């Protein structure tokens, strides 16, 4: 991955190694916020925003603090604090500067702190040894992949409302079956990159 081109990184993050459907990161918002396409798209936008920012900040923290002072063992604590602080900060700034965007993302922002996909992307960027540009591209592409998956999933779930589902399968089980079929579809991209 370290020497992969930008296009490879993008295609791989969105389709081949889709965070939700093949890496299983960010399952909680994927299942919880996907009842309506509108909320799913809102969540997706918030994730794109926070994930890209988190990628950048954790990259700087890793390179100029952790690696420099040989404190790599503090990585988890550091990253999670950066993400939590970042979400708070983004919330305050958006409220002040871009109230319209804030009201669109509003309730989704705090939820993202506990979204394992954000911490996951930060850890992967480090594992892959990405430089700053690749970190930004990879983080954003992963978030776009998340948005794609959650919007697809939500649009199928909306249609499902009108269907007669067996009692035992109502709620989570049928949603997971849909996720499984989506995941099968995305499996088709394996080997593309």
């Amino acid at each position, binding site marked *: 991955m370290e020497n992969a081109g930008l296009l490879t990184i993008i295609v791989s993050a969105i389709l081949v190694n889709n965070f939700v*459907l*093949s*890496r*299983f*990161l*960010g*399952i*909680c918002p994927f*299942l919880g916020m996907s009842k309506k396409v509108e909320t799913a798209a809102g969540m997706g936008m918030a994730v794109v925003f926070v994930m890209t920012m988190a990628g950048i900040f954790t990259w700087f923290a890793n390179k100029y603090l952790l690696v420099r002072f040989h404190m790599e*063992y*503090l*990585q*988890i*604590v550091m990253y*999670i*604090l950066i993400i*939590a602080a970042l979400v708070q900060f983004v919330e305050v700034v958006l409220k002040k500067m871009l109230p319209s965007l804030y009201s669109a993302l509003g309730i989704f922002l705090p939820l993202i702190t*506990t*979204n*394992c996909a954000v*911490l*996951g992307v930060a*850890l*992967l960027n480090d*594992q892959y040894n990405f430089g700053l540009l690749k970190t930004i591209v990879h983080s954003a592409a992963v978030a776009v992949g998340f948005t794609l998956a959650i919007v697809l999933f939500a649009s199928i779930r909306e249609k499902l409302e009108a269907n007669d589902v067996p*009692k*035992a*399968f*109502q*709620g*989570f*089980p*049928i*949603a*997971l*079956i849909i*996720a*499984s*079929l989506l*995941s*099968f579809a*995305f*499996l088709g991209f394996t080997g593309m990159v």
Partner: protein
Amino acid sequence: MRLSILTRGLIKDNPTLVQLVGMCPVLAITTTLENGIGMGLAVVVVLALSNLLVSLSRSFTPERIRIPIFVVIIATFVTIVGLVIEAYVPSLHKSLGIFIPLIVVNCLILARAEAFAFSHGPIDSLLDGIGMGLGFTIALMIISAIREILGTGAIAFGGTVLFQLPIPQTISMILPPGAFLVLALVLAVKNAISNRKEEA
């Protein structure tokens, strides 16, 4: 009374199958029974110790910044457990990969700190952590055993094959779609059982 704190996480309030929290590792690392047990035990240790420390420090934890404090406590124990696994069971560390540091953001652990440990004594909190952690482990064992048997036709542990069944290997069961499918079916069976109980 004390015993019920320990046991209710196992089946009645099982965090994975009943409360449906912390689903990422449930789907991601349940490709083999060995991984399932390893992940489960790592969560038991982190959950029990973080519950204990949250409970011990609750008298001087300011209410308003409790969540960041919980997160730092949890992250500390996850780091310790991660380093221990890396040192003593490197093969497990390799196969669980990124999901060891991601125990930090497992909502199960934060949920127990917030909903139980912050308002209960240290011994009760420790028991709650062990019980919930074991419930999580049980769920992981069920799902990973089903996936491993269907996917490879056998159960292997520590490099040796424990038993082998004469069934065709369905590779897709150990691939990502199989995770969603098996979890869906396990939850449906659980629903069917509890529906029948309600009717009776």
